[in-house]
C-alpha cells in the first residue's frame, strides 16, 4: 500500500509543528524520516495515525484521500505504529494487549483468549521468535516488549508500519535484530516509515531518507550520504560531532562506591555489587540500555533511593544513609534523568527554580523571608551565563523548550560549590545546539577538578564525554573500560558479556 502525505500542516497555538510537509512511502520500501528532537517528526506521525487532526493537507493511501478521526480509523485503513514509548499495558498479558481494540468474542461479550493466544504465536513464529502469550507485559524485557508492539501492529494487518524512534531502548545487538525484522517486513511488501535521529541506523536500513527541520522538509538524501552531510541537513549548519577535550588531570579523593546494592521497597534487587571510583578531573560514563539499574544507581548516590546497602564515599565522607539535603550540602550536583519530573517545578518561575535546592541559603533568604531581589539578580546572571532563551527570571520554567529547561537545571547545579557532578541523560530531548553547550560545560566542570558521573543510554554521548566507561547490565557493572573502547565491545557488554575482550 502506498502512503502519501500532501501539505500536512499542524499548529499548536502560535507554534507551527508541521509546515506543509509532503512525504511518499511506497510498498516494499523503508523510508527514513530524519530530524533532530523537536523537528516535528512525531507530530507528523501522530497526524498520520489519527491522534492529531491536521490543520491543512491530506493523507492518501493508494491515492485515496483518508479522513482519520482517531487511531481506530487509521488502523482500519491499514496503518500500524510502533511507538517510541510502548503503548502497552503492563498489567495485561501479551495476548490481551494484542487483542485490545479488536477483540474477538464469543457468547455475551466474553473474550476469546484462545484465539488471541494463537494469533500471537503465529505472528511470532513468522519472525522466528518465541513469546508466551500469557506473560504479563510488565515482566518482559524492553526488547521483547517492542516485539509485542510489532505483533500488535501486524495482528491488524498493517500495510504501512511506522517505527517511531524504535532503537532508543535497545542494545546494539537488539537493534540489529530489529533491522532484520524491518527488512523482512519490507520484503513482504510492507511500506515502512522509520523515524529516528540516529544517522548510522538510517544509512544502514533506509531505502530513502527525508530530512525535516523546524517542521519543514529540508531535503531528501540517499543512504549513501555521509554522516556529516546528513547532520548538517538535519541541524541546518555544520555540526561539530565530537567534543574536544584534553587528557584528564586526575586528582586525589573523589567518589568511591563499594558493594552497592539498591532494593525496591518490595525487596527486589535493582542494583547489586557495584564498585567503582571516580577521581577528581575525570568523567566516568555509565553506559547501558535503559532500565539496567542506572537510574537507581544515581538515585542511591543522591540519596533518593529508599533502600541502599553498601558504601558511597565522597572524599571520605559516607553518603549512604544521609538525607538528600545533607548529600547536596556535601557538594553533590545532580542533573536528573527526567527534568520535568525530578528537575524542575514547571509552574515556578526560572528564578525560583534556580534556587530550589538552596532556598534556606543566607544569600537568598533572611529571617525565613525570601530575598526576592537577590533571587532575581541571580537569575539574570545565570540566564546570561548559560544562554537560557527566556523572557526573564519570571518566565515559568514549564513554558521553556527542552534545551532551555535543561540549561536551567545545569545552571542551578553548576552555580553551587561542587565536589561531585552526577548528570543523568544530560542531553535527552535536547536540541543539537544545546547538546554542544551542555557537553562543553560538563567537560569544563571536569577540567576544574571535579569528578563527574555521566549516565547515558546514547553511545554517542558516552563515547564523546567519557574518560572511562562503566557498563551496566541487570543492575551490575559488567566492566569498566577505557573511554576509547570500540562500539562493538560496548554493545556486547551492554548485552551482558562480562569479558569483552574474549567475546569480541
Amino acid at each position, binding site marked *: 500500500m502506498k502512503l502519501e502525505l500532501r501539505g500536512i500542516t499542524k499548529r499548536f497555538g502560535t507554534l507551527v509543528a508541521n509546515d506543509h510537509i509532503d512525504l511518499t512511502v511506497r510498498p516494499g520500501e523503508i523510508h527514513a524520516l530524519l530530524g533532530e528532537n*523537536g523537528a516535528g517528526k512525531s507530530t507528523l506521525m501522530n497526524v498520520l495515525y489519527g*491522534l492529531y487532526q491536521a490543520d491543512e493537507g491530506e493523507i492518501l493511501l493508494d491515492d485515496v484521500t483518508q479522513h482519520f478521526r482517531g487511531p481506530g480509523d487509521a488502523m482500519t485503513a491499514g496503518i500500524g505504529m510502533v511507538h517510541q514509548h510502548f503503548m502497552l499495558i503492563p498489567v495485561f498479558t501479551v495476548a490481551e494487549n494484542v487483542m485490545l481494540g479488536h477483540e474477538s468474542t464469543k457468547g455475551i461479550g466474553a473474550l476469546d483468549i484462545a484465539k488471541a493466544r494463537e494469533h500471537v504465536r503465529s505472528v511470532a513464529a513468522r519472525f522466528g521468535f518465541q513469546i508466551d502469550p500469557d506473560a504479563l507485559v510488565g515482566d518482559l524485557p524492553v526488547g521483547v516488549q517492542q516485539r509485542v508492539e510489532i505483533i500488535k501492529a501486524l495482528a491488524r494487518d498493517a500495510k504501512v508500519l511506522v517505527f517511531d524512534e524504535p532503537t532508543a531502548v535497545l542494545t546494539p545487538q537488539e537493534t540489529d535484530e530489529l533491522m532484520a525484522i524491518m527488512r523482512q517486513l519490507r520484503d513482504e511488501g510492507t511500506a515502512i516509515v522509520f523515524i529516528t535521529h540516529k544517522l548510522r541506523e538510517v544509512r544502514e536500513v533506509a531505502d530513502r531518507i527525508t530530512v525535516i527541520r523546524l517542521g519543514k522538509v529540508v531535503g531528501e538524501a540517499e543512504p549513501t550520504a555521509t554522516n556529516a552531510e546528513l547532520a548538517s541537513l538535519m541541524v541546518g549548519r555544520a555540526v561539530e560531532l565530537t567534543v574536544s577535550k584534553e587528557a584528564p588531570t586526575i586528582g586525589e579523593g573523589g567518589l568511591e562506591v563499594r558493594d552497592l546494592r539498591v532494593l525496591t521497597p518490595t525487596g527486589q534487587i535493582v542494583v547489586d555489587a557495584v564498585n567503582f571510583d571516580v577521581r577528581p578531573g575525570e568523567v566516568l560514563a555509565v553506559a547501558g540500555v535503559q532500565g539496567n539499574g542506572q537510574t537507581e544507581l544515581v538515585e542511591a548516590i543522591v540519596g533518593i533511593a529508599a533502600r541502599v546497602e553498601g558504601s558511597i564515599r565522597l572524599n571520605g565522607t559516607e553518603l549512604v544513609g544521609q538525607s538528600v539535603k545533607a548529600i547536596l550540602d556535601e557538594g553533590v550536583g545532580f542533573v536528573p534523568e527526567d527534568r*520535568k519530573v525530578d528537575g524542575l517545578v514547571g509552574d515556578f518561575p526560572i528564578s525560583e527554580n534556580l534556587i530550589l535546592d538552596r532556598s534556606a541559603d543566607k544569600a537568598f533568604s533572611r529571617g525565613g523571608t*525570601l530575598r526576592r531581589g537577590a533571587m532575581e539578580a541571580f537569575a539574570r546572571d545565570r540566564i546570561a551565563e548559560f544562554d537560557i532563551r527566556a523572557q526573564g527570571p519570571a518566565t515559568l520554567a514549564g513554558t521553556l523548550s527542552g534545551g532551555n529547561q535543561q540549561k536551567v537545571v545545569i545552571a542551578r547545579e553548576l552555580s553551587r560549590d561542587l565536589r561531585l557532578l552526577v548528570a543523568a541523560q544530560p542531553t535527552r530531548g535536547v536540541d543539537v545546539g544545546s547538546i554542544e553547550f551542555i557537553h562543553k560545560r560538563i567537560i569544563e566542570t571536569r577540567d576544574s577538578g571535579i569528578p563527574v558521573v555521566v549516565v547515558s543510554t546514547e553511545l554517542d554521548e558516552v563515547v564523546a564525554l567519557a574518560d572511562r566507561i562503566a557498563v551496566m547490565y541487570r543492575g551490575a557493572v559488567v566492566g569498566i573500560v577505557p573511554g576509547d573502547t570500540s562500539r562493538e565491545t560496548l554493545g556486547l557488554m551492554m548485552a551482558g558479556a562480562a569479558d569483552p575482550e574474549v567475546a569480541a
Partner: protein
Amino acid sequence: MSQTTPGAEDASRGLPPEQLPPVSGPLVGDEPPPPRSNVVIKEILRGNAVTTILAIVLAMIIGGILIAFTDEDVQEAAGYFFARPGDTFAAIWSAVYGGYDALFRGAIFNYRADDFVTQIRPFTNALGFAAPLIAAGLGVALAFRVGLFNIGARGQMLIGAMFAALFTFNLELPMWIHLPLTLLFGILGGALWGGLVGLIKARTGAHEVILTIMLNYVAYYLLLWMVRTPGLLQREGTNQPISEATPETAQFPELLGPSFPQLDWGFVIVILATVLVWWVVERSSLGLRMRAVGENPHAARAAGVSVQRIYIYAMLFAGGLAGLAAMNQVQGSVTTGFTANIDAGIGFDAITVALLGRSRAWGTFVAGILFGVLKAGSFSMQAQGIPVDIVLVVQSLIVLFIAAPPLLRAVFFLPKTDQEKAAKARAKAAKKAVEA
C-alpha cells in the same frame, strides 16, 4: 494532543505543562505522588475575577429558580399560568427579589433599620461568621498548596475545641493569660489532629483524603463521648451532652462594643493568621519548599526538600488553623458550652471557601467573607420562608462553576442555534482551558 508520549518532544516546546500527569492519583499513594501540574488547581488558581463573578451569578440564578419554584405564591400563580402569565412572572420576581433583598438586608446593610448602628450590624455579623470560615479555609488552602487535600478540618476543629476545654476551661486565670492560653490549646489540638494525618501519610503513604474523612468521624465520636461523660467534658450538674460554658476570661471581647455582638477580636486574630499564611506561603523560604512539594514533589525531593517533613509541617499548620476556627467558635460565637457539633459544618464549608479563594491567603479571606455574608443573610432569607438548604446548594454550585470556565462561557455567551459557531467556540474554550 495526548497526555505525554506521542510527540512529547515537540510538545515540550510550546505546549503547556498541563500535559504532565496530573495530581490526584488513585487514593492510595505511593511516595511521592506523581508530579502535579494539575489542571484543576491551575484552573482554580489562575481563573480570573470575571469567572468568579459569573460563577456566583449563575449559582445565584439557579438558587433563584429553586426559590421561585418553592414559593407558594409562585406555585399558586403558576396554577393559572396560561390564563394570566404575568402573575406568575410577577410572583417569581417578588419571590426571588424578596429573597435576595432579605439576604442583602440580613448580611450587609439593613436599610430599613432606624439608626446607622443597626443598619450596619448585619455586615459585622457577616464578618463574625466569616472569621472561622476564613481560618479553617486557610488551613485547607495551605494544605492544598502543598498538594494535600485536607477534608479533615471538621475533625481538627473538634479536637481543637476538645483540647481547649480539657486543659483550660477549669482554670482560673486573669484574662490576659487565660484567653491566649485557651487559644493556644485550641490551635494545638487542631494541629495535633492534622499533624497525625501528615505523619501517617509521610510514614505510610496512605492517601490523606481517606485519612481525613475517617479521622473526622473518630474525632466526632471521641468528642461526643467526652461531652456526655461526667468528669471529662460534660457540664457539671447536668446530664446533657454539652460542655461547660467558656470561662468569661477566655472569651474574645467584642471588637466594636456590644452593639455588634457577632464581631469579636477573633476576627483580628484571623486577619493576622491570613497575613501569616500569606507570608509563609508566598514569601518565606519554607513556603517555597512547600509550594515546590505541592507542584512537583519529585523535583522538590531531588532538590533536597524532605517531602515527608513538609507534609507533616503542612498538616500541622493546617490543623492549627482549623483549631483557630474552632476557637473562634468556642471563644467567640458559642460561648455557652458546646456539643459534638461545634464545627457547625464549617469544616466542610472551609473546603469550598478555599477552592473559591483559589487557595491563596487573601483569596480565601475574601471567599470566607462572601460565605459569611451568605450565612448571615440566610437568617433573614429564612424569615422570608426560604429553606436554609438553599445556601448549601448555591455554595457548591459556585465552586463547581468556577472549576469549569468553559461551561460558564457556554452558558453566558454562546448562541445555541449556530452549530458551527458553537463548535468552533467550544474548541477554543477547550484549548483555553488547557492553556489558561
